[in-house]
């Protein structure tokens, strides 16, 4: 799976994007967050406040309980602030 990060999340994780093989126990966006948090303290810090996180699978906004099946890219970022 390709992971992409933006804004505050990107800075906290320390990279724009990465490719990772996701364990078979990881089914949803929420599972991904939990798994990454355990991988490294940087993810734990970046994902510390779930209320301030938003997710997109293949560039479509999704909720944390969405299954990853069939998607290639998970984006994790704060609420948008354009305009």
């Amino acid at each position, binding site marked *: 799976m390709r992971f992409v990060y933006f*804004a505050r999340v990107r800075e906290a994780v320390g990279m724009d994007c990465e490719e990772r093989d996701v364990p078979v126990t990881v089914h949803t966006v929420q599972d991904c967050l939990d798994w990454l948090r355990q991988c490294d303290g940087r993810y734990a810090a970046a994902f510390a406040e779930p209320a301030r996180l938003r997710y997109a699978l293949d*560039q479509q906004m999704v909720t944390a309980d969405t299954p990853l099946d069939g998607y290639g890219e998970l*984006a994790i970022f704060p609420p948008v*602030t*354009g*305009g």
Partner: protein
Amino acid sequence: MKQVAVTAEPISTAMALDPLEHLGGGALASFTGIARADCGVVALELEHYPGMTEQNLNALVDEAMARWTLLGCVVIHRVGKIAVGEQVVVVATAAHHRAEALDACAFLIDRLKTDAAFWKKEHRTDGSALWVEAKSTDDARAEKWSL
């Protein structure tokens, strides 16, 4: 006529209004967002999600054109480093009548604030830089447009 652009180059209101001026409509409306020197801000930095951002903007324009009788919509958003006083976003609409042009223009900028994948960082005179937090007032204004 619709046009959506995300660009790192300077933008202007005229870039959005010019292509709408000769479509035969009686009404043009525009909104321009400018980087403000709030509390020592010297520049903004706008990040976006290439591909998704353009999809978001196109979806907003399509929704506006479905809700109102419009001859055209243009949305241009700048990204990268933007000095105070420079334009961040321009939205413009053309319609036969003013109500449509004005309402669609307000809809587009209100919903762009909550629906399009942009993130804004403020750079200050003291060298510090802070990501802007999403505002509940923006959510409330976007919510007004739900059907």
